C-alpha cells in the first residue's frame, strides 16, 4: 500500500528541517551579491526570483485548486500596466502604485472568476484564454489609454527614502533584494495556504468538486479566494517586472506565451507542491537565458568568448527557448506528470520499499 507522508502525519522533525534548509538557501542568496558584483548575475537573479513568484502564484489556483488557468497573463499585465501608468502619468512611485495594481488585479479576478468558474475542465481553460485575449486585444486597440502596440517606456524610478537612507532603483542591486524578498514572501504564503483550511479546501475542490461541495465547501467562494490570491501575486510580479525592464507592451505582458510559461514553471517542477515552482524556475530560467543570450555564459566566465558552443547557439538556436519549453512539457506530461518533485518522491518511495524489503528478507533469514 503506498504511503506518503502528509503534513498531518510527518514527524515534526522534518518540518523543522525543511524550514532550516529554506532559511539557509535564502541566506545564501542574500549574501551572494557581496561576493559577485557582476550586474548580469544580479539580473539573472531577479529573473529567477520573478519566475519563482509567477510559478508559486499560479500554483495556488492551478496546483492546489486544480483550475488550470492559461490566462494568467491578464493579472500580470494588469499589474504591469497599472504600476507603470501610475508612475508615468501620475508620478505615483511604484511602492504605492503596486497596491493599486494588486487591488485592480484582484477585482478583475473576481469578475473573471464569477464568469469562468461555472465551467469545468477544458472549457474553463478555453474561457481563461479567451478572457486574456480580449484584454490583450483591447489593450492593443484602445491606444489613447494604453498607447497600444507602441507600449510604455518608463523614464525613471524615483529613489525610495526610508528613515535617513535613500535607496536608488538605478542599479540591479536593489531589484535583486526586492525580488528575493518577494519570492520569499510568496513561498511563505504558499506554505501558509497549504497548511491551512484553505489548502485543504482547495485540494478537495481539485480532487472532486462534487464531493467537496457536498462536504460543506462553497465552491464559488473558495475558487475565487484561490484565484484572488493567485492574481494578487501574479500582478505583483507584473508590476515588478515593469519596473525592472522599464518597457511594456500588450503582447509582452498579456501574451498567451506568458500565460503558458507560468503553467510550465509549475508543471515541470511539480504542481501542487511548494518546491515545484522553485525547481521549475531553476530549470526554465537558466535554460531560456542560455538560449536567448549565450554570450551571458561568457560574461559569467564559464566559457571563453570563442567557444564553439556559444557560436552554435547564437547561429542556430537563438530564441529557441520556447522550443525547449515545448519539448520539456511534452516529456514531462508523458513521463513525469507530477514534475521533478514527483520524480523525486517516487524515487524516494522506491528506495524505501527496497530498503524495507531487504530488512524483511534479512529478518526472515535470521529466524
Amino acid at each position, binding site marked *: 500500500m503506498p504511503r506518503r507522508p502528509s503534513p498531518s502525519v510527518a514527524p515534526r522533525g522534518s518540518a523543522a528541517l525543511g524550514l532550516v534548509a529554506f532559511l539557509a538557501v535564502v541566506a545564501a542568496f542574500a549574501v551572494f551579491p557581496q561576493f559577485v558584483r557582476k550586474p548580469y548575475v544580479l539580473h539573472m537573479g531577479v529573473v529567477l526570483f520573478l519566475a519563482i513568484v509567477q510559478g508559486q502564484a499560479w500554483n495556488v489556483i492551478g496546483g492546489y485548486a486544480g483550475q488550470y488557468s*492559461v490566462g494568467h497573463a491578464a493579472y500580470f499585465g494588469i499589474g504591469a500596466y497599472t504600476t507603470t501608468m501610475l508612475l508615468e502619468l501620475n508620478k505615483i512611485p511604484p511602492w504605492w502604485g503596486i497596491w493599486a495594481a494588486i487591488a485592480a488585479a484582484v477585482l478583475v479576478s473576481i469578475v473573471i472568476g464569477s464568469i469562468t468558474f461555472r465551467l469545468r475542465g477544458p472549457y474553463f*481553460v478555453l474561457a481563461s484564454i479567451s478572457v486574456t*485575449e480580449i484584454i490583450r*486585444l483591447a489593450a492593443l486597440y484602445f491606444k489613447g489609454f494604453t498607447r497600444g502596440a507602441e507600449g510604455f517606456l518608463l523614464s525613471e524610478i524615483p529613489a525610495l527614502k526610508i528613515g535617513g537612507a535613500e535607496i536608488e532603483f538605478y542599479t540591479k542591486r536593489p531589484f535583486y533584494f526586492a525580488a528575493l524578498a518577494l519570492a520569499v514572501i510568496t513561498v511563505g504564503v504558499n506554505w501558509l495556504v497549504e497548511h491551512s483550511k484553505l489548502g485543504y479546501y482547495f485540494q478537495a475542490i481539485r480532487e472532486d468538486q462534487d464531493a467537496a461541495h457536498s462536504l460543506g465547501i462553497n465552491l464559488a467562494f473558495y475558487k475565487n479566494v484561490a484565484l484572488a490570491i493567485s492574481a494578487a501575486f501574479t500582478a505583483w510580479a507584473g508590476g515588478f517586472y515593469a519596473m525592472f525592464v522599464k518597457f511594456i507592451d500588450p503582447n509582452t505582458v498579456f501574451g498567451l506565451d506568458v500565460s503558458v510559461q507560468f503553467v510550465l514553471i509549475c508543471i515541470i517542477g511539480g504542481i501542487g507542491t511548494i518546491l515545484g515552482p522553485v525547481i521549475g524556475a531553476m530549470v526554465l530560467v537558466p535554460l531560456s537565458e542560455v538560449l536567448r543570450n549565450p554570450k551571458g555564459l561568457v560574461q559569467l566566465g564559464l566559457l571563453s568568448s570563442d567557444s564553439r558552443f556559444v557560436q552554435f547557439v547564437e547561429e542556430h538556436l537563438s530564441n529557441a527557448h520556447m522550443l525547449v519549453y*515545448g519539448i520539456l512539457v511534452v516529456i514531462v506530461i508523458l513521463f513525469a*506528470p507530477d514534475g521533478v518533485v514527483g520524480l523525486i518522491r517516487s524515487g524516494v518511495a522506491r528506495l524505501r520499499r527496497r530498503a524495507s524489503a531487504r530488512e524483511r528478507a534479512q529478518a526472515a533469514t535470521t529466524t
Partner: protein
Amino acid sequence: MNVFVQSVISGILVGGVYALIGIGLTIIFGVMRVINFAHGDLLMLGMYATWLVFTKLGIDPFVSIVITAPLLFLFGAFLQRVFINRVLNALPQNQILLTIGLGLVMSNSVMLAFTSDYRILTTSYSSSSFHVGGISVSQPLLYAFLITAAITAALYWFLMSTDTGQAIRATAQDRDAAQLMGINVRAMSVLAFGLGSALAATAGALISPTYYIFPQVGSTFTLKAFVIVVLGGMGSVVGATLGGLIIGVTESLAAVYIATGLKELVVFVLFLALLLFKPAGLLGKTRA
C-alpha cells in the same frame, strides 16, 4: 446595402475555410475527446508546406493540396500514435498541456528553420476578383470556397456511406460500444487525428494565397477553431460547418460595422457568451 452584402459574401467565403478547420478539430474531439491545441499549428505546417512546394516546384497552392494533405495526414497519424495515444486516459488538463507543448515544438521548429519573416505566396490571381452585380468577389477566396465545398461534400459521403466512415462515427458516439462491436478504436483514433490534421493543412493551403505566412500564425486559428467547434457543438461535423460560416460572417461584419481592430475581440466575446450560456452549441450534445 451593398456594403452589407459584400461583407456577408466575403464572410461566407472565408467561413468555408474556417469550417474546414473546425471540422478537423471536431472530428479529433469527437473520436478521442482530446482538445487539440496544436490544431492551428497543423494549419501553419500546411501553409509552409504549400509555400515550399510553390517556391521550389512552382506548383499552384490549390493543386498542391494533393501533396500536402496526405503528407500532413501521415504526420497527424504519427503524432497520435507516438504522443496523443499515451494520454487518452490522463486528466484533460494534461492532454491540453501536451498538445500545447506539441504546438510549441511545431511553431518554434518552423521559426528556427525559416525565421520569423513573413512570407507571402503570390499567384497570378492572388489579388484578382470577380465582379458580379456590383459585388467584388476575391478570386482566390472563391476558389478556396469551391474546393472547400467539394472536400466537405466528399467528407460527408465518406462519413455517411463508407464502412470506415461509419466506424469513425460509431467510435465518436460511444467508444466502448464501438470497441465491443469489433471496431478497432485505436486505429480510428489514428485515422481521426490524421484526418483532422489533413483538413487543417488543407485549410492552410487554401488560405495561403491570401494570408501572411509566419510561424506563429497558428495560434489565432487554433482559438478561432475552438470558437467554431463550441458554437457548432463539440463532435458535430455539421455543426462545425455551420459554425465556420457563422464565424466568418460575424468577423466580416464586425470588421465593417464595429472596427477592424476589434473584429477578433468580438469573436472572443461571443465565444465567452457561448461557453457560458450554450456550451453544447447549436447542434452538440452537452458533454462538458
